[in-house]
C-alpha cells in the first residue's frame, strides 16, 4: 500500500450523500418511535378520561398529521442528516470570520451533561443550586477582570440579544435623566455586525452609520460631525470585521461622552484582545462577549448561546435581573434589580450550560493561557494574511500593516479577470471539506471573504486552507467552469433558488410543499 501523499494541494473529499427523504416520507401507519409515560389505571379510574376534563370546544378534532416512524428509523434518519452537516469539529473552520470557530473542548461538553446541571429547574430554592450560582458568580468575576467592567449579566442569549439589552439600557438611562425623548439617535459603523444597527432600531432609535476612512479606520471627523444633543449612544466593534484595530478608540469614546452619549462595545471580535487590552481603558460604559465565540462554547447550528453583558457601576442598576451575588458568609443569592432595571430580556437566567462551558474554558487556560490565546490568534491570522496576499487575484483592502485576529479579503481582481465570484468559491470550498464565508451585507469590500483562524489551528491546518484557496485561484484562471458549477463533491448540487422569493412558490414546510406542488395530495391532506 502506498501512503497517502500529504503534500497534495487539496484534500480528496466527498461529503456523505444519503439521498435521505424528508421525514414525512418515512411514515408507516402504526409504527411507534417511543411510548411516553402513561396514566396508572387507578388514577384513570378516579379521574376519568382526559376528554372529560377538556371543554368540548377545546378538544382537538383531528390528531396532528405527524408521521409514524419506528425508533431505529428516526435515529438513522437524523444520524444521516448529521453526517451531511460539516461541523467545526470536522473541518479547518477558519472560513467563518467574525464567529471565532475555535476548538470545543470535549471535557466541557461532558461536564454540561451532568444531571446536576441538566435537571435543575431555574426556580429552585437558591439553597439547592449553590454550585450553579457559584459558577455564575465566578464567571462574572473572570469577565470583570477580562473587561474592566463592574458587573455582568448572562441573561442575554446571543450577541444580538446582548445588543438589544444594551440599546434598552441606553434608553432606560436617558429616560431616567429626562432626556429619553431628546436623545433619539444611535451611531454605529458599517463594518460592524448588522445586529448593532438592527437592535437599536428595534428600540426605536434612528441609526447613523459611519463609513470608514481610506485606511479602513472608523472616521473620527465623521463621528464629531454626527454627535449632538440627540446622540443617545455609540456602538462599535474594535477591531471591526476587517481585523483593523482602531488605535484612537479612546478619542471616539471621549467625543461621544462629551456629547452626553453612552458608549457600548460589541466584543464579538475579542479573541485577539484577551489579557492585552480592555473595554474599560478604551472608555466604554458597557460591553458584551459572545461566550459561543471567544469563550469556546459551541455554536449549536445557531444557538442556544450567551452574550455576556458587562457594565460599569453607573449602569449596573439598569441591568436585567436577577443578578447572582455572593454574601459575606459565602452564600450565593439571586438579587432582584430595582425600578431602573430594563426588566428582563430572556426568561430565567440565560443559558446556564454555556455559562458552565465558558467558566470551564477559562479555568483550563488561566491568565497566562488566555493571553496565549490572544497572541496565537493574532499570530495565526497574520501568517494566514501573509500567505493569502500571495495568492493570485486576492487582496486585503485598506491598511497594509498587520491585522489582529481576522481579515476581510477581496477577490475583486480575480472576479474581474476570470468572472469567478466569491459566491462561486463558497461552493467550491465545500468540495475540499472546508467552510468559507463571504461577509455580512452590504458588501463594502468587493467580492469579500472573511477568515479568522483563531488559536485552535496548527500551522499545517492553516496551510491546508491556504492550499485550497490557491488551488481554486488556479482553477479560476485555467478552468473557471469547475468553480462556477461547484459543488461537485457535496451532499447536493446547486440549488435552483428561483422559488425562494416568490410567495406563490416558496415552501416553508412540507405541508406547504404538498399543497403548492400537488393538488391531488392537497385534497388528501385536507381529508
Amino acid at each position, binding site marked *: 500500500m502506498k501512503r497517502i501523499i500529504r503534500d497534495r494541494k487539496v484534500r480528496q473529499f466527498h461529503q456523505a450523500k444519503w439521498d435521505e427523504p424528508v421525514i414525512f416520507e418515512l411514515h408507516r401507519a402504526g409504527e*411507534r*418511535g*417511543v411510548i411516553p*409515560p402513561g*396514566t*396508572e389505571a387507578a*388514577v384513570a379510574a378516579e379521574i376519568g378520561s382526559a*376528554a372529560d376534563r377538556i371543554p368540548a370546544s377545546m378538544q382537538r378534532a383531528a*390528531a*396532528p398529521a*405527524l408521521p409514524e416512524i419506528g425508533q431505529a428509523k428516526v*435515529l438513522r434518519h437524523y*444520524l*444521516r442528516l*448529521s453526517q451531511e*452537516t460539516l461541523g*467545526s469539529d470536522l473541518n479547518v473552520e477558519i472560513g*467563518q470570520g467574525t464567529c471565532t470557530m475555535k476548538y470545543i473542548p470535549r471535557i466541557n461538553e461532558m461536564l454540561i451533561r*451532568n444531571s446536576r446541571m441538566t*435537571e*435543575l429547574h*431555574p426556580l429552585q*430554592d437558591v439553597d439547592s443550586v449553590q*454550585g450553579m450560582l457559584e459558577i455564575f458568580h465566578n464567571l462574572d468575576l473572570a469577565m470583570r477582570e477580562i473587561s474592566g467592567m463592574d458587573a455582568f449579566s448572562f441573561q442575554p442569549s446571543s450577541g444580538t440579544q446582548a445588543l*438589544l439589552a444594551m440599546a*434598552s439600557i441606553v434608553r432606560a438611562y436617558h429616560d431616567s435623566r429626562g432626556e429619553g425623548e431628546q436623545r433619539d439617535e444611535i451611531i454605529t459603523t458599517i463594518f460592524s455586525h*448588522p445586529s448593532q444597527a*438592527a437592535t437599536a432600531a428595534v*428600540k426605536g432609535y434612528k*441609526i447613523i452609520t459611519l463609513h470608514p476612512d481610506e485606511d479602513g479606520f472608523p472616521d473620527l471627523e465623521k463621528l464629531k460631525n454626527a454627535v449632538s444633543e440627540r446622540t443617545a449612544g455609540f456602538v462599535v466593534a474594535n477591531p471591526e470585521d476587517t481585523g483593523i484595530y482602531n488605535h484612537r478608540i479612546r478619542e471616539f469614546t471621549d467625543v461621544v461622552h462629551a456629547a452626553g452619549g453612552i458608549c457600548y462595545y460589541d466584543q464579538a471580535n475579542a479573541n485577539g484582545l484577551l*489579557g492585552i*487590552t480592555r473595554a474599560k481603558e478604551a472608555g466604554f460604559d458597557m460591553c458584551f462577549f459572545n461566550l459561543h465565540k471567544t469563550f469556546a462554547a459551541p*455554536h*449549536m447550528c445557531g*444557538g442556544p448561546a450567551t452574550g455576556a453583558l458587562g457594565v460599569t457601576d453607573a449602569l449596573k442598576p439598569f441591568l436585567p435581573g436577577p443578578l447572582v451575588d455572593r454574601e459575606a458568609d459565602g452564600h450565593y443569592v439571586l438579587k432582584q434589580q430595582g425600578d431602573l432595571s430594563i*426588566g428582563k430580556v*430572556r426568561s430565567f437566567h440565560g*443559558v446556564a450550560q454555556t455559562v458552565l462551558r465558558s*467558566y470551564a474554558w477559562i479555568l483550563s487556560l488561566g491568565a*497566562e493561557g488566555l*493571553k496565549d490565546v490572544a*497572541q*496565537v490568534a493574532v*499570530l495565526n491570522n497574520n501568517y494566514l494574511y501573509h500567505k493569502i496576499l500571495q495568492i493570485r487575484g486576492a487582496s486585503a483592502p485598506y491598511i497594509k500593516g*498587520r491585522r*489582529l485576529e481576522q481579515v476581510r479579503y477581496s477577490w475583486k481582481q480575480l472576479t474581474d479577470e476570470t468572472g469567478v465570484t466569491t459566491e462561486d468559491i*463558497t*461552493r467550491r470550498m465545500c468540495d475540499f471539506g472546508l467552510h468559507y464565508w463571504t461577509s455580512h*451585507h452590504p458588501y463594502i469590500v468587493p467580492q469579500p471573504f472573511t477568515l479568522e483562524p483563531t488559536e485552535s*489551528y496548527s500551522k499545517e491546518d492553516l496551510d491546508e486552507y491556504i492550499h485550497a484557496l490557491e488551488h481554486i485561484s488556479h482553477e479560476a484562471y485555467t478552468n473557471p467552469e469547475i468553480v462556477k458549477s461547484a459543488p461537485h463533491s457535496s*451532499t*447536493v*448540487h446547486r440549488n*435552483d433558488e428561483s422559488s*425562494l422569493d416568490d410567495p406563490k412558490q*416558496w415552501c*416553508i*414546510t*412540507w405541508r406547504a410543499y404538498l*399543497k403548492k406542488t400537488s393538488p391531488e395530495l392537497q385534497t388528501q391532506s385536507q381529508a
Partner: protein
Amino acid sequence: MADNRTYAHPYIPNTVPEVRDAMLKEIGLTSMDQLHDAIPDSLKLDREMNIPPAMNEYELRRHIEGLLAKNKHGADYLNFLGAGCWQHFIPAVCDEINQRSEFVTAYAGEPYEDHGRFQALFEYQSLLAELVDMDVVNVPTFDWAQAASTAIRMAGRVTGRKTALMPRSVDPDKAAIIRNYCMPVMDIQYIEIDPATGKIDVDDLRGKLSSDVAAVYFENPGYLGIIEDQGGTISALAHEAGAVSVVGVDPISLGVLEPPARYGADIVCGDLQPLGMHMNYGGGQAGFIATRDEEKFVMEYPSRLFGIVPTEVEGEYGFGDVAYERTSFALREKGKESVGTQTALWGITAGVYLALLGPAGMQEVGSTIIQKSGYAAKRLAEIPGVSLRFEGAFFKEFVVDFNKTGLTVAEINRRLMDEGIFGGKDLSAGYPTWGQCALYCVTEIHTQADLDRLAAALRSIAGTSSNGS
C-alpha cells in the same frame, strides 16, 4: 507568550516554540509582543490578569463536579415547579441527536456542506406546523417571551397600529420581557381576568379594543394552567376591530387541545422546551412562531425561514433561505427587527421529539398530563385549608390556595424541601392580592405514588398550623 512554558497547551497547537518562531519569522517579526503593536501602550493592560492558574483536564473535572455536587436536582427531589420551564420525559434519541458533534459544532454553513442542518430545521418547521396546524414556522427564537414579543411587533407592522392587549394573568417575567422589547414602539395594556375562572373578561376586552389595537395576545393554556375556552370569541372580537389574534401555546398540549388556528389565531407562538429539552436551569427554552402562508405575515418574520427547493440535479432535495431580503442580515436596521444566533439546535431536537412521539404519542402524553394533574389537584384540594384558586379546566399547572392554612407558601416550600420535595412556584410576590398561592406543575413523569407523597406531605404540613381548619 511566556517563554518558560515547558509544554504546548492542548488547545493551542502553535504554542510549540519552534512552530511559533518559524511563523513569526515568516511574517518578519521576532517576538510575540510585536503582534499587538497597533494597540497604544496607554490602552494595554500592564499586568497579568487576576485569574486562577490553568487546571489540567482532570483537575478541571474534579473542580466542576465538586461544584455541581452542591446542586440538588429532580432525581433527589420530587419537583412540582413549572411556570415556564417544565420537567418532561425526554426520549434518549433526542439527546443522542443533539449531542452529535456535527450538529453541536455547526453554525453558518452553506446549504451544501450543511445540507443536513438545513434539512433537519426544515423538518422541524414542518413537524411543528402539523402540531399547530399552520403552514409557516420559523427557525426558533430565544424563548416563548421573545416569540410573543416578535409576534406582537409583527402584528404592529401588519396593522400599522401601536397597541397590544394581553391578559393580566401573563407571567410577570414574560410581561417584563415583552414590555422591554416593545417599548417605545408599541404600548402594552392589560385585559382583566375573571376572578373566579382566571379566563379573559370578554367585556373588558370589548371595552379596550379600538382602532389603535394591533394585537390581542392570549395563551392556551395560560401561565396559570387555565384552558381558555373563549378563544373563538376573543379572536372574532380582535378581527372585528381590525386587530391580529396572537395565541401563545404550550405545544405539548396540542395532542389533545385544539390548535389555536382553529379558533381564529393569526399568529401562534410558544416554547419548545417541553418537546425534548432538559430544564438546564432555564437553558432549554426556545421560542417558535407560526402563521398561515400569507405574504403579509411571512414578510414580517425577522427569523430565518428555510424552504425546500429543487437542485440542478433531478431527484435531489435542496434547502435555502426564504425571502432572505427581509432580514437584518440583508438590510441591517431596515430589516425586520433583528436576527442572529438563537436556538437552532433546540429546534432540531423538537423535530426529533415530534417524529418519535407521532400523533399517538402526542395524544397520549397530553391525556396523561391532564389526568395526572387532575388527580394531583383533587388530592391537594382534599387537604383541610387547601383549595384550588380557580374553577374550571386546566392543563399541567394549577393554582393552589394556601391562605386558609395560615402558612406562607415560603414556609410550606421550606418544609417540603425537608421532605425532599420542591413545591410549586410561590405566586405571592407576583400576585399580591391573592395572598398565599402557589403554581403547581404535574406532568407525565409523576407517578401516582409521587402525587400521593406530595399530598401526604402537604396534609402533614397544613395540619401543623394553628390556623389550619
